[in-house]
């Protein structure tokens, strides 16, 4: 045994220094900024050399004049040399002016409407927005924050992407509606086709899949996507589960024909993946180790949504109404969560954000946000921050969460008790 390994402190030190949580996102340093900095250094070095040379010339010339001219005439000589020296300094100073740092390559946020938000930690978020209506080109915006939303900087986007959500069964490949990041470097834009980044969003590339990507989630080093499997004229489309390692573009369909009726819903928590489908499809889960079919709490529904934490919450839309179900075993079994808001059945616009074990936060238009327990009981926690339409609720941990309300981004640090609006402005 290495004698160093016998010392618990040295072992703890090795563990600490190699802890994955000390890894930093690579786009903290941009290569173009390194080039700009090196250019500035070269110019500064050249300027210093030029000034030093000028000083030497002035000194030598001054000495020569002093040696060869009458004492009374020394004023003109040094003045000329000084002028030349000043000229050198001016050139040198001009040369030493810092090269402007390249501006961010992404377009400024410009008051865009928030469409999607993804968080890789309690401080790091990436936000997708649009400055125009659905279907507009050139109006998508992407911004990132590394301080919990206090400040943002813009990120570039593929130029030909269109904002919006593709119609079910359409082949709008260039439509983008969502963003997800599975690590600080690896992210995806989807909705239509799939775009991926592996450098923190500074460059994007197209990833070829057979059809539109309906849903995508990443955790534990893998990214999972529901890809439309049959969108060419059938009455009902199917969604099929595909997967890839987070840092690669090696997408493969998941073995076992994990297919559900569209629009499917996907939740990933650790290594556990749950897929729900509409209409008569079964639910799929790999909570037992391999993917197997189970009872679908949304059987017969027109639309399904999933929000996952330690407890999974399914929203089953049956028309203008919706009902909720929850699972504590990764989607193998479900229990109804009959939330009673006092206004009859839940509307189809209800939004659920899973928050830890056995709890979620519920957003219903015009009603205060409420904590929701597995048995359906509700506890009012906060008035709607502003407006009415909650389109997203999600939590990074039990305290920190984000909401998209009336196309603005809000953050809570106390488990939905209070919210503050994030001001997204980028250069």
């Amino acid at each position, binding site marked *: 045994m290495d004698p160093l390994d016998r010392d618990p*402190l040295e072992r703890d030190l090795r563990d600490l220094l190699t802890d994955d949580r000390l*890894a*930093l996102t*690579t786009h903290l340093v941009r290569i173009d900024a390194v080039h700009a*900095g090196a250019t500035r250094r070269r110019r500064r070095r050249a300027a210093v050399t030029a000034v030093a040379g000028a000083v030497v010339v002035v000194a030598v010339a001054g000495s020569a004049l002093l040696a060869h001219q009458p004492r009374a005439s020394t004023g003109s000589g040094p003045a000329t040399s000084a002028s030349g020296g000043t000229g050198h300094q001016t050139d040198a100073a001009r040369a030493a002016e810092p090269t402007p740092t390249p501006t961010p390559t992404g377009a400024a946020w410009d008051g865009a409407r928030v469409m999607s938000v993804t968080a890789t930690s309690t401080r790091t978020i990436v936000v997708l927005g649009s400055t125009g209506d659905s279907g507009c080109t050139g109006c998508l915006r992407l911004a990132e924050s590394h301080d919990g939303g206090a400040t943002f900087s813009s990120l570039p986007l593929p130029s030909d992407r269109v904002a919006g959500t593709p119609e079910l069964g359409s082949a709008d490949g260039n439509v983008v509606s969502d963003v997800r990041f599975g690590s600080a470097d690896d992210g995806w834009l989807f909705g239509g086709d799939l775009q991926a980044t592996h450098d923190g969003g500074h460059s994007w590339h197209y990833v070829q899949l057979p059809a539109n990507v309906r849903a995508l989630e990443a955790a534990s080093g893998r990214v999972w996507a529901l890809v439309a499997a049959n969108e060419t004229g059938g009455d009902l489309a199917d969604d099929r589960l595909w997967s890839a390692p987070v840092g690669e573009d090696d997408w493969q369909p998941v073995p076992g024909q994990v297919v559900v009726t569209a629009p499917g819903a996907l939740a990933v928590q650790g290594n556990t993946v749950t897929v729900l489908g509409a209409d008569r499809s079964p639910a799929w889960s790999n909570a037992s180790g391999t993917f197997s079919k189970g009872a679908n709490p949304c059987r017969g529904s027109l639309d399904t949504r999933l929000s996952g934490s330690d407890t999974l919450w399914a929203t089953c839309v049956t028309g203008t109404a919706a009902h909720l179900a929850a699972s504590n075993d990764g989607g193998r079994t479900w229990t109804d969560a009959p939330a009673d808001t006092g206004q009859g059945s839940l509307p189809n616009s209800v939004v659920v954000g899973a928050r830890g074990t056995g709890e979620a936060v519920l957003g219903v238009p015009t009603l205060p946000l409420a904590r929701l327990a597995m048995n359906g009981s509700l506890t009012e926690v906060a008035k709607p921050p502003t407006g009415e339409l909650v389109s997203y609720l999600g939590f990074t941990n039990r305290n920190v969460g984000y909401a998209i309300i009336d196309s603005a981004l809000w953050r809570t640090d106390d488990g939905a008790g209070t919210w503050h609006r994030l001001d997204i402005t980028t250069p």
Partner: protein
Amino acid sequence: MADEQDAFDVFARGRMRELLRFAHVLTGDPHRAADLVQDALERTLMSWDRVVRKDDPVAYVRRAIVNRHVSVWRRQRRERLVADTPDTPYDPRTAKRAFDGDLWAALSTLPPRQRAVLVLRYYEDLSEADTAAALGCSVGTVKSQTWKALAKPRDRSATDSEGVRTWTRSTATRSSATCATC
């Protein structure tokens, strides 16, 4: 020239993650780490043709980071705020082991040269000779600096009233690991 720049870009992109991480464990602060890496890469780019011909580029950048970190600290030598412990997104693969905030805080109290010795020895796994080469000092200095650097968190932990963990070692064991003449 363009080929050289391309080669540098490939090198910088490929090594960025490990350089940032190295600078992070060296400084304890992600922002200072990013500044150090940018500074070191700028210097490396200016000497790129020489670096690729005569040197190991990663070792060169690592040396530049360490030297800059130590020299800046010497020039500024004043109290610095300790950066927050790293943000810890939930990850089942690492969730079993809590981040050792006490040891991280203890490292932040070390002078940068002592911390650099620990990082090179226990993170980069460099030998004492390689650590000495990276720091431009003797192997004996590396040994003595290692001993001094480890003594601080060890003493701090030994006085901990909780007594959950102790890093106090017997004199014999300590000597076998760090004695300059062993």
